[in-house]
């Protein structure tokens, strides 16, 4: 029996997409900040995030889609299991303990794989799958952003990463539509790295990578300069990552060959994030180090930093 398809206006689609993105933003950025303020991940004895790490990340991000596109789907699933499990284990072991974290990962993954194979034939099934997917993606974004930031990633490096991803998004979403192909190929499979919802016959989603960059930028601004800077960063994220991404299809046609609308969100957000960083640097001065941030919160006293030639630490705009 044929089912009539009701047309959905672009305005309606845009508003739903805005709600999805905003939900993701609030959950990921808010969760990442709460985690950053309350949980300390264990660090290796030596090592802090630096500029070369950003380059390595960008190279990795650039190469990985080709690998995903080339590998058979079951192997892609295995890689995603490994990636998500590592992220969740690192992120939530300090919270749940060594046993609890594996139990949690097992339940999340098991349920996700089960729903991916058994309940996708109905709208409620799709929605259940998307809810689950979204929980996993938000948890992963919170964990990985904190892994980088508590590992010493600075706002400067986040800004450069966002700028690099802007170029990446332009190339791989607009000119060489690899991202769209990957989504079309892997949708419905377990551990799909998107947060979203299905309404009617349409999926509305935002990618894990986007949420990760927003969380990084938001929390890095907080770590570097305090709550006021985080509020400014949040504003940029909401405007460029939320509204601009949702409404830009009114101006530009991002429809691909499957008639999916795929907006290269980072190409909108990245340049503004970078300019915002430059403004903050000019306005607030040097970024706080992790030790200075912890000291400002009355955390465990840090040994004196051997920063003989550093300028005096800025007074945080607010804590």
């Amino acid at each position, binding site marked *: 029996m044929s089912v009539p398809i009701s047309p959905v206006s672009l305005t309606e689609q845009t508003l739903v997409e805005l709600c999805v993105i905003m939900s993701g933003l609030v959950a990921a950025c808010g969760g990442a900040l709460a985690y950053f303020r309350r949980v300390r991940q*264990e*660090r*290796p*004895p*030596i*090592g*802090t*995030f*630096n500029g*070369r*790490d950003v380059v*390595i990340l960008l190279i990795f991000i650039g190469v990985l889609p080709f690998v995903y596109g080339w590998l058979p789907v079951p192997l892609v699933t295995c890689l995603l299991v490994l990636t998500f499990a590592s992220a969740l284990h690192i992120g939530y072991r300090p919270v749940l303990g060594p046993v609890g974290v594996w139990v949690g990962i097992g339940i999340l993954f098991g349920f996700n794989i089960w729903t991916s194979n058994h309940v996708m034939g109905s709208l409620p099934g799709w929605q259940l799958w998307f809810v689950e997917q979204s929980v996993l993606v938000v948890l992963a974004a919170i964990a990985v952003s904190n892994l980088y930031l508590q*590992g*010493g990633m600075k706002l400067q490096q986040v800004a450069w990463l966002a700028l690099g991803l802007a170029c990446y998004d332009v190339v791989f979403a607009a000119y060489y539509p690899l991202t769209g192909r990957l989504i079309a190929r892997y949708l419905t499979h377990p551990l799909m790295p998107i947060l979203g919802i299905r309404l009617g016959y349409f999926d509305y989603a935002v990618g894990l990578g986007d949420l990760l960059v927003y969380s990084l930028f938001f929390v890095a601004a907080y770590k570097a300069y305090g709550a006021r800077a985080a509020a400014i960063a949040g504003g940029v994220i909401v405007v460029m990552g939320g509204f601009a991404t949702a409404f830009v299809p009114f101006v530009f046609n991002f429809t691909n060959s499957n008639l999916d609308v795929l907006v290269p969100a980072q190409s909108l957000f990245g340049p503004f994030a970078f300019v915002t960083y430059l403004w903050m640097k000019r306005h607030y001065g040097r970024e706080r*180090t*992790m*030790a200075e941030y*912890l*000291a400002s919160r009355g955390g465990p006293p*840090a*040994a*004196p*930093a*051997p*920063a*003989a*030639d*550093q300028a005096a630490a800025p007074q945080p705009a607010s804590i």
Partner: protein
Amino acid sequence: MFETGVRQFRLALGLVAGRRIDPGNVARLVDDVLATLAEFGEPGADAAELIDGPTTSPEAQLETANRGLRRTARRLAAQSPFYARRFAAAGTDLARFGLAGLRQVPVTVKADLTERPGDFRCADVPPYLATRTTGTTGRPTEVWLSRYEMELWPALGALASVLRDELRPGDVMQVNLSSRSTAALHLAAASCRLVGAGCRPLGIVPPEAALDALADGGTTILLSCPSYLAELVNEARRRGLGAGDFRLRRIVVGGEVLSPSLARAAARAFGVTAVEDPYSMTEIAPVSGRTCRQGHQHYDLNLGYTELIDLDTGELAAPGALGTLVVTPYFPYRDCTPVFRYDTRDVARCLPDGPLSCELAGVPATSQIVGKANQLLRLHDGEVITPRQLIEAIEALPGEPWPARYRATADGDRIRLALPASAIAGYGHAEAERHFAAAGLGADLDIVPDDQGAALRHTRSDLHETMFASQHALAGA
């Protein structure tokens, strides 16, 4: 962070495989530690294990020792003429060599090294820098070092120092050691360079010149020997200088016995919390020992194997017994003139059985060094008097006669102790003998004029180096 992980992996891989380590890789790890400290204020978890080795697992320590000894013995048998003969004579099975067969190899004594230095040099390494001992035992020993060693040791030293917050960027290290200690000076300067600290190698110059530099030059770390430190304390007191006149945060001395009286006085005079007294020796470098807060001497187990051998039986010293330290630096840390089971003749006491409770409890330890084996006094009743006992007792006299000048000989069950008159000035002969008795030393005193004091016992500070500024007749020459 990713790069640091790769560097640490490379270092670990080199250690496990027993290959030479890339000193440049270790130097870059020093930069990584500095960046880590700048960001976090302290290193991350397990930093102690990274530098001190497997301190929590006796099995891992045994494995480290067996692997280190085996790979060192194999290399020496192939490259060092002296040890090729020695292992052949001992019938050493190099394929299965380890702790079990270690004591079948005779110890190497200083005379071997002094008389046939060329036989110790490995054939596969070009010599780069010669360093000489100060010759405190009569004849100086010359040890050749390779360029690899001169790059690796400061890198490893700097890595450990920054992780332990012993050396920071912006520190200024003043080195008052003999200028002929070329290796020690080179290592101090190179370690400072890697960390971004300043280094002022002054030598054993007149104490007033060293004190000027300490007070005016922003020195934060002083590296010297106890006898010279004593001269600096005396000079500071003479000039009325106190803790507020210096910026020192660490004083590190070695090469001689440091008494608690002198250590306390130096800490007070220069405003540091304690004077550090690590153990090291040119012949066994880079193996070294550190003193914990409970006064044990702990020996590095990553870089070499240290035994305490009973002075009389040649077996491992029993708890409470005195023994000589016998040290084997591992390849790839020792490269050009390596030694195997080198008998340092530095004597320490074996600690009582049972676990230690100090902050370095996982690292093997003995008592502090009590002196050289040939300076022990054996009384007729069998009691052994160590140089440390004598120096501590003399330097604890109310007249604070630093550095201790004395000559001690055994006289039946008592000690005949020659002291300069100034040592007991204002105290009295009988009172001084009671002071030594209270320290467990039955001593009969011979008091000699002060101008003969320096001849009683030579110290490293006697090797004064002249300067035009201190010899006014030569100024402008």
